């Protein structure tokens, strides 16, 4: 279930029509793929589900984990960077990710060209192909759907750097990071000319593009930014797990836009992705709580929430690439490993990933990407064919993961450095102590 390159069918039709009559006929056929309104309805719904994941979803999930004095800062950073991503997406992001191929053989594996910058040529009538021959959706809908992916990914990165990074630095970082990290990786994974696509890497809904990418970038950013003042000494308990709980619920609901939406059609494949997104997540939530219990602690509400997210992350690349039982196992395994990452690894390595963007999205994403290469097997109920070889697939998955990690790390280092030069990156210690709400935004979240 690998995504094909998608393009405005109108434009394609036209350019082809110019060559030969025979071709022209074929092109005419190709130029008029069926647009099913059921697909369109589902893809618009999915797009909104992903928006709801960002606002209010992620803003609450992250905001609730922060301290009271930084609540608004977290919500505003998440929201504003998402807005910025939307504008940039329209500006050059869509073109760089899903535009037309560069003529250079190498470069076209990494980005597409700028012909579609500012959505040039996209109209209410142009369409984007789906995975089924001759079935398309309105291109605007596809642009919107993919736009929300870009927006949430950059917002996810912020999880590790909140409570100390300047608002202006966030905006500068976001603009650069999207351009040099997100758009290329989205192209590599989802465009037919893209590097990973050509390799045959499996990634149903963006485990690599979104989660490994965001998680690794978050880790690098956190390391470059340094720890929060008082980290490890003061109490930094979540100021409202109620908000985190609401956020968790909205993330789960919204994630179906992500996963079942990535089928691009309202069909049985979307149904399978939905099924898996339910059970992997349910298994992960309970598995995390069980892990806490086995570690001698109480099964916690935050553990429940963390498990939900870990399961969602892990099942993202596998959503349409697994059977339900495979998904359950994948979710449970991811939850346990993320639990260890967050409670043991982080403590040992001593970095301050404030809201565990790396521990959950990074680690969970890797488990998911590798795991997809396993649960894809028909022996485990996955949709792989007879002649599929797990070892080969795993090699491919592994390669895609490694490349993503390297690319994200390098790109983040650059983006953070530029943000530091331009803005100073981190707020003054007094501002950090007082809280970014007052210091950066001049407001308090609560005036009870």
């Amino acid at each position, binding site marked *: 279930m690998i995504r094909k390159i998608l393009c405005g069918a109108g434009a394609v039709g036209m350019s082809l029509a110019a060559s030969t009559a025979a071709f022209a006929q074929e092109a005419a056929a190709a130029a008029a793929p069926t647009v099913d309104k059921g697909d369109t309805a589902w893809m618009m719904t999915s797009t909104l589900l992903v928006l709801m994941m960002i606002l209010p979803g992620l803003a609450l999930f992250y905001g609730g984990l922060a301290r009271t004095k930084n609540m608004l800062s977290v919500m505003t950073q998440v929201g504003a960077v998402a807005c910025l991503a939307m504008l940039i997406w329209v500006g050059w992001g869509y073109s760089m990710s899903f535009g037309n191929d560069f003529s250079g053989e190498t470069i076209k594996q990494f980005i597409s060209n700028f012909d579609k910058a500012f959505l040039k040529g996209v109209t209410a009538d142009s369409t984007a192909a789906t995975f089924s021959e001759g079935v398309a959706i309105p291109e605007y809908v596809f642009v919107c759907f993919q736009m929300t992916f870009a927006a949430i990914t950059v917002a996810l990165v912020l999880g590790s750097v909140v409570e100390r990074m300047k608002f202006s630095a966030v905006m500068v970082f976001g603009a650069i990071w999207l351009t040099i990290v997100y758009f290329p990786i989205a192209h590599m994974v989802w465009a037919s000319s893209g590097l990973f696509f050509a390799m045959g890497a499996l990634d149903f809904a963006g485990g690599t593009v979104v989660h490994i990418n965001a998680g690794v970038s978050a880790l690098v950013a956190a390391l470059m930014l340094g720890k929060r003042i008082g980290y490890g000494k003061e109490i930094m308990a*979540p100021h409202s797990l109620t908000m985190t709980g609401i956020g968790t619920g909205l993330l789960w609901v919204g994630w179906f836009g992500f996963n079942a939406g990535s089928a691009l059609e309202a069909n049985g494949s979307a149904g399978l992705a939905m099924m898996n997104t339910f059970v992997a997540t349910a298994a992960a939530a309970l598995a995390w709580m069980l892990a806490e219990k086995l570690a001698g*602690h109480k099964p916690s509400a*935050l553990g429940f929430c963390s498990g939900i997210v870990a399961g969602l992350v892990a099942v993202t690349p596998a959503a349409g690439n697994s059977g339900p039982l495979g998904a359950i196992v994948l979710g449970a395994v991811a939850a346990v490993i993320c639990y260890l990452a*967050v*409670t043991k690894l*982080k403590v040992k390595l001593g970095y301050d990933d404030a809201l565990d963007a790396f*521990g959950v999205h990074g680690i969970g994403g890797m488990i998911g990407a590798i795991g997809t290469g396993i649960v894809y097997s028909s022996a485990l109920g996955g949709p792989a064919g007879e002649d599929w070889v797990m070892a080969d697939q795993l090699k491919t998955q592994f390669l895609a993961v490694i490349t993503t990690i390297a690319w994200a790390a390098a790109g983040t280092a650059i983006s953070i450095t530029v943000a530091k030069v331009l803005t100073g990156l981190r707020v003054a210690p007094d501002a950090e102590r007082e809280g970014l709400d007052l210091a950066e935004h001049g407001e308090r979240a609560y005036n009870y």
Partner: protein
Amino acid sequence: MKFIIAIIKPFKLDEVRDALGALGVAGMTVSEVKGFGRQKGQTEIYRGAEYSTNMLPKVKLEIACSDALAPQVVETIQQSASTDAIGDGKVFVLDLASATRIRTGETGDTAL
């Protein structure tokens, strides 16, 4: 007059207030505080970060009363707030130099 400050367990508030009411204490001021003492608090863990602050939720009562009533107030609080478990709290008595009712400007015992 005396100014009595009592720190008690939150769930004992209603009982203490009823007992004091029976005694004729007409008013008091109540606030939520955190207490730090011998009683140990629950450990809270959030994703591996452990906090055992030993800061426990308590309720603070402030009661101004006549010198005559003071000993009874202290005793009543002590008895009604007790659970015989650690962390039951304290009663402190301070001297009160003057008291004024804002509405009327009355002072002294009649202001209470």
